[in-house]
């Protein structure tokens, strides 16, 4: 079992790497043969997927694809605050 990470820090990390993915994705749409951008996309996409799984495991899922990663005995997609609610971010 890995040690429980800091929730706020992990969430912030997910926001950062996800933003990199969002931004590089748009750049790649108009520059599909840019090797440096492709490498960059792969790196951040991997970091994002790992972090989403890690977050789901300890704090509940942010995506439906990681809902199975959490160790809850009930459906916890609806448990945590929604993003626009206080404490949700």
């Amino acid at each position, binding site marked *: 079992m890995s040690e429980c990470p800091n929730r706020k820090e992990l969430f912030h990390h997910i*926001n950062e790497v996800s933003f990199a993915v969002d931004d590089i994705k*748009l750049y790649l749409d*108009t520059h599909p043969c840019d090797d440096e951008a492709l490498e960059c996309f792969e790196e951040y996409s991997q970091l994002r997927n790992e972090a989403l799984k890690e977050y789901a495991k300890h704090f509940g899922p*942010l*995506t439906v694809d990681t809902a199975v990663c959490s160790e809850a005995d009930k459906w916890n997609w609806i448990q945590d605050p929604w993003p*626009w609610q206080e404490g949700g*971010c």
Partner: protein
Amino acid sequence: MWLYEKRLQYPVKISETNPKLAQVIISQFGGPDGELAASMRYLSQRYTMPYNEVTGILTDIGTEELAHMEIVCAIVHQLTRDLTPEQLKASGFDKYYVDHTLALWPQAASGAPWTATYFQSKGDPITDLHENMAAEQKARTTYDNILRLTNDPEICDPIRFLRQREIVHYQRFGESLRIVQEHLDSKNFYAINPEFDVRQDCGC
């Protein structure tokens, strides 16, 4: 197909109620240069776009605009969620409240309801991309106008993020226009409309 992700693209945490500012910022939800119109514009235009790069950009920016709509709604919600009847009357938010209580509803700052006439889907890639580039600049100006009305860092911070994205999207649409023009007759870009005059048979 879309999947929901349970987080905002940029975090919003506002502690102080401010109904006057909420009435202005709601324009970026349902106003003429708001995020709802932006998303519907790009997601409507993409079906007849013949170039893969540009179809990708319309899909991905149209999707990001939905996330921006959620950020704007989160700002408006957090600026109004603790309103008291006294604050409602004093701020002029009572006119919105009487019809919607504290729920979100897409309207301009003036109170005009959201309408599909805020955007065009013309079916000509040069025309639509010029519309999109103008739309990004109009939204950027709206965010600049909002930033002149407040110094509250909790509000300015996400608004600055949204403003910055308008500039990035403008850049990507400019590149899309170049890609479209590279496919056309360099002596006369208007000789044909590739969304109508040259239609490929998909064979299915």
